């Protein structure tokens, strides 16, 4: 207890409020805490700074300072890549992207009609954004999907409204990747719900069929399914009935994704407390009413983050159609550097393709972790 005068003021003048030492607050303290906590941490920090600076300097000089952005092209359309070859790897040859970007994005689609696949890509992106917003999570969203997917079909094929007809063999690039991923998703998701319900069913025959389907598909690589689609499918069908290659690959992807999504959905069904099932039965609801109104809305909500993660994996896996020669984004990129003039510039093309894939996947992954944080808010103390 300090001495206090009769009028309440302390006898000893209160000390000036002292500032904390510079090493305890602000950026210095932060650096001490997080970068130089002990000699081990300091060594790691210094080593990493050295490596990152070294890498960054060499990357910048390769990708920007020494890079060649344009090369002359002869009137016959043959590029003169001597400027690029002269670099001998010290600089990037971005000219391959300047020259080939339309081909990489849209494949062999007729050049003057490129606005159509461009609009298709934008429509897809718009569809993703709308589907991601929670205020649009209503049954009407399914109608929007049907409408937009039909519109996309009309734009790609054409043949009406003055748009010339473009056969499916000439489609390519980014639209194919988006079509495979989106249509795959649109069909695999309902399939996966049915299979997941079947796997939890009390009917032994249905359960056995679903278990067999899921385990068989998950036990083999996607490539083997794609091979099956490309070489075995034609044997399965009666004579005269021919399904084109893209559709066959699409079916393989749907079957593949359906099995993986079914496991995610099943996890949600299992995580739901038994009381929900029992309460719904006590109300006298039939199986489908119980499932549609009580179980699925809650179970699907529980698994949205892992579902989005599965979608990401599945979006990346569409690139595997390269192996059976379907012209998606990756195949278009790989084909662009087959031309003798551009041979050996794979690294530049793959970096560009990587950026495109990364944009889509990174957006989805950020979205998924955002949702997860939001759904878990009630759990945090």
């Amino acid at each position, binding site marked *: 207890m300090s001495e206090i005068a009769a009028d309440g003021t302390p006898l000893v003048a209160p000390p000036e409020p002292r500032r904390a030492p510079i090493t305890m607050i602000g950026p210095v303290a932060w650096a001490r805490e997080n970068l130089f*906590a002990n000699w081990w941490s300091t060594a790691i920090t210094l080593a990493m700074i050295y490596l990152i600076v070294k890498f960054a300097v060499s990357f910048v000089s390769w990708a920007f300072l020494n890079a060649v952005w344009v090369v002359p092209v002869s009137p016959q359309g043959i590029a003169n890549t001597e400027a690029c070859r002269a670099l001998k790897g010290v600089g990037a040859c971005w000219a391959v992207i300047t020259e080939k970007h339309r081909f990489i994005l849209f494949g062999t689609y007729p050049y003057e009609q490129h606005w159509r696949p461009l609009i298709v890509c934008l429509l897809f992106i718009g569809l993703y954004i709308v589907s991601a917003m929670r205020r649009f999570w209503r049954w009407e969203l399914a109608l929007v999907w049907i409408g937009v997917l039909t519109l996309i079909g009309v734009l790609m094929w054409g043949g009406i409204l003055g748009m010339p007809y473009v056969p499916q063999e000439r489609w390519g690039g980014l639209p194919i990747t988006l079509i495979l991923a989106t249509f795959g998703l649109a069909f695999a998701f309902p399939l996966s719900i049915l299979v997941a319900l079947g796997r939890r069913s009390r009917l032994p025959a249905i359960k056995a069929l679903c278990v067999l389907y899921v385990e068989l598909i998950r036990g083999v*690589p996607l490539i*083997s399914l794609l091979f099956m689609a490309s*070489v075995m499918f034609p044997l399965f069908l009666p004579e005269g009935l021919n399904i084109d290659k893209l559709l066959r690959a699409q079916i393989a992807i749907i079957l593949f994704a359906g099995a993986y999504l079914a496991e995610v959905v099943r996890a949600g069904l299992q995580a739901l407390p038994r009381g929900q099932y029992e309460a719904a039965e006590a109300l006298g609801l039939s199986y489908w009413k119980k499932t549609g109104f009580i179980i699925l809305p809650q179970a699907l909500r529980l698994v949205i983050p892992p579902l989005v993660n599965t979608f990401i994996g599945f979006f990346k896996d569409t690139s*595997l159609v390269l192996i059976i020669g379907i012209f998606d984004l990756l195949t278009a990129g790989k084909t662009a550097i087959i031309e003798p003039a551009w041979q050996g510039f*794979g690294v530049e093309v*793959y970096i560009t393709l*990587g950026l495109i*894939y*990364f944009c889509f996947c990174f957006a989805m992954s950020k979205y998924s972790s955002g949702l997860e944080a939001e759904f878990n808010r009630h759990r945090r103390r």
Partner: protein
Amino acid sequence: MSGASTDPRLLRKAPPRPLRISWSDERFRNIVYQVLVVAAVLTLFGWLWSNTRYNLEVRRIATGWGFLSREAGLPIGEHLIDYDPSMSYFRALLVGVLNTLKVAIIGIVLATVLGTLLGVARLSRNWMLAKFAGAYVEIVRDLPLLLQLLFWYSLLQGLPGPRQAFNPVTGVFLSNRGLKLPYIQWEAAHSWALLAFVVGVVITYFYRRAARAKQMRDGQIRPIWPFALAAILGLPLLVWAALGAPFTPDVPELRGFNFRGGLDVSPEFFALLLGLTLYTAGFIAEIVRAGILAVSQGQWEAAQALGLPRGRVMNLIVLPQAMRVIIPPMTSQFLNITKNSSLAVAIGYQDIVSIANTTLNQTGQAIEGIAIIMLVYLTISLSISLFMNWYNKRIALVER
């Protein structure tokens, strides 16, 4: 409520009810539904089967497994067992299976090590290390594996030729012909030493079990490492020395336009291994991180309050609990490496998919070719998941 004296009325079952042939009987409905579904599936498969039979006949495609014993005539660059193109298709496919297993096993080991390091690094208190690991994981997981494989492969192909090869350490060369590593000339003594190593590991395992059992009885902790060191390192060294300690290094050398000697890692294998390892390590890092985070802070504090040193806390308290969370998703990552190794076909590494694909192109027997691929992967997948389930059951929480 005690379990011993349950009300006998609760144990009584409902009296059996006769099945009524009526739509209002649930059991009857269920049987009808199942019969309908199974009939539909069988009809579909029957239809596909009859189409296939017809198509095979019309196109004069042979069926059966006779082709397996015919001469393959397909060259394979890398083989773990003796092989040349005059051998049978069966032998070629076997080489493919071994190549798949080779890349999968090495990939699993490397990805686990790298992934664990990255997962721990993401939780490091060093900001820079944590951010670096986080950025790595994010980038690697958001790019298709096939793209990464093609990237590494074209990067390796863009390297200078053998004459200008990178030579970071004596005996290690990196060029567009792949990676060359120094090796030793393998002799019988080395095989014996390897066998002694395996024996040492087995002996150590049993020694550890016995030590644990003794500890359970008298509470004394017995150090295991001196024995382990002697058995795992000492025994092979002793065997090697007893057999004359042969040691002839086999260092790769540039002769003319290519290298001679040493251990040869082909660009295809190297690109595939690099891609698989770096990709899967990103996923494993996330699993390890989640596993460590799943052990609550209270467990650390309680263990420290008991006076356990930090290393023991990690070994005895945290890791066993984290493992329960880590093992199941880790299993699926191991399966993924194995299945993803099938992408080898895109960069020309001859795994089972690549060889079966060539086989089905040469013989035209698509069904058999694809059946072989699926059978091989199903077998591998089932074995890995059986093993991991067994291990998981061993470490799972024993609840009442």
